[in-house]
């Protein structure tokens, strides 16, 4: 509107003269401290933890959304089971072959079974769970929540006095946790069977040695830590997906970016957490026989 107006207003506005130019700032706006860019990652991390705490507290608040939980559980399970089983066979095989050829060089062939099973149960299986939960389930959850957010559905829900965290996020996080634990069991079994098959058939290992070394090296806490990892991974994947989904930046493209980021962030977090948990576990749980 730069063209001169034919008519002037009856009197100049009683406000102080408006700032000129598009870049002018508001007069007498309350002075805001400019947030430092350096601290931005810390702020995001803090918000993520705040959401984790809010979700953990909302888990125990009534009413529990049974229906939503079952729907989400079914959804997460249905998108992860088949890929998990399909991925775990070659994964178990790769580990069996690799460990097998290594132990052959070392002359410890009879321990192939134990070594490969431990690798599958403690490491491979939780990592596959992490990949599938964050890649398949997390991305779907993030996209779902993100598109609800930009369509103001979450605002509407909050306005009606329903907390989106309790109504939507808690069932999703619990569903990813439960599916992760169950999936971990499935992958452990399928991966171990795959390893056994490849070791015995392809590398001429003996079934007896495989099983004997297995029970000589593996112990029950190995399974516990594996399931515990899966539980934690499920929680983190659910929280990160929900966090990015609840805070998309700017429209439909923002949702796409959020999904992308949620998967990448989850991957990085999960691998890091896996390292920490493994280190702690190896420190506090003595290896069998030592």
């Amino acid at each position, binding site marked *: *509107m730069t063209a001169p107006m034919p008519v002037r*207003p009856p009197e100049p506005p009683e406000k102080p003269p408006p700032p000129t130019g598009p870049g002018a700032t*508001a007069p007498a*706006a*309350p002075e805001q401290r400019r947030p430092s860019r350096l601290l931005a990652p810390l702020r995001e991390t803090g918000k993520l933890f705040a959401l984790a705490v809010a979700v953990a507290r909302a888990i125990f608040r009534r009413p529990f959304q049974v229906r939503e939980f079952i729907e989400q559980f079914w959804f997460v399970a249905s998108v992860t089971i088949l890929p998990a089983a399909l991925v775990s066979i070659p994964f178990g095989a790769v580990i069996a072959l690799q460990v097998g050829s290594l132990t052959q060089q070392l002359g410890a062939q009879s321990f192939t079974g134990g070594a490969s099973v431990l690798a599958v149960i403690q490491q491979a299986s939780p990592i596959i769970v992490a990949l599938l939960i964050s890649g398949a389930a997390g991305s779907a959850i993030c996209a779902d929540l993100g598109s609800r957010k930009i369509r103001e559905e979450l605002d509407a829900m909050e306005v009606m*006095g*329903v907390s989106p965290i309790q109504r939507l996020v808690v069932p999703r996080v619990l569903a990813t946790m439960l599916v992760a634990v169950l999936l971990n069991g499935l992958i452990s079994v399928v991966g171990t069977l795959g390893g056994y098959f490849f070791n015995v058939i392809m590398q001429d290992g003996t079934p007896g040695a495989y099983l004997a070394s297995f029970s000589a090296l593996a112990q029950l806490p190995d399974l516990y830590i594996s399931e515990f990892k899966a539980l934690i991974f499920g929680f983190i994947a659910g929280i990160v997906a929900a966090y990015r989904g609840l805070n998309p930046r700017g429209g439909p493209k923002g949702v796409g970016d959020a999904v992308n980021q949620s998967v990448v962030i989850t991957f990085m977090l999960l691998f890091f957490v896996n390292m920490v948990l493994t280190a702690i576990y190896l420190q506090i749980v003595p290896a069998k026989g030592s």
Partner: protein
Amino acid sequence: MGIEVVVEGLTKSFGKQNIWQDVSLTLPAGEVSVMLGPSGTGKTVFLKSIIGLLKPEQGRVLINGVDMVNSSERDIMETRKLFGLMFQDGALFGSMSLFDNIAFPLREHTRKKESEIRRIVMERIDIVGLLGAEGKLPGEISGGMRKRAGLARALVLDPQIILCDEPDSGLDPVRTAYLSQLLIDLNAQIDATMLIVTHNLDIAATVPDNMGMLFCRNLVTFGPREVLLTSDTPVVSQFLAGRREGPIGMSEEKDAATLAAEQLADTAPPRTGPRTVVPQLEPSPGMPVRQGALRRRERVMSMMGQLPEAARTAILNSYAPAAGGARA
């Protein structure tokens, strides 16, 4: 009876950009208020601040003693059950049918039986004229229908405070007129406090008891409708007349140079004398008398002394002829 909403010294910024500052007003219990303002003056932000979706940096919004800005999340959630908010584009849940959408608050907050829920929901669907569409998904209906469904959802819990964000956008003039009448009838029936945010002049002229206007990061005025409708403040008169001449420019406010040019070009805006105040809508025949209007009458009469001359005349005119009739 509705609940009074007291807003005190509210200030909201997004980053460095100040939206509005020091907004203070009181929405009287059970009365209909309209907040006017050019596009982009933060009307929707104001609405969302009242209900606690956005947190202003300063000020309070008091409802039943709960501060929607600073109180605990639990109290705010509880207080929100008193509200019905009609979003600009309905904000329906895309994965649910209209029926489930409208039944959502009932299913979440009440322990009513499904047959009872069905009865209430169908009644609301009938009120907003959507019978027959209850099985459709929000993606399958027009924007105006979504809007009306959003209103039905806002009404389903018999709210004490109803907030409408641009009820007219996306509706044709006839439906807008029906909607105006619907809002007044609702007010007569449930005596809820209502705040309508709009820039539709028809709604502004006929529906509210009170009017306010946001412009240039400030609340220009808030008071009985006659005050704004007869106001000589340049911003208000420009807005109500829909003229180009005045302080409001294409991008919110005009810069000094343009204003000066307008002043140089000096031809006084065509004054049509004091604007005539259109009579307010009455509830449809058969509806109860609006308790809010009765209370307002007493309130306005008691503050008569502080009002400008033009507003005083308009108020007296509006009450004089039909005083004994439907209004009183």
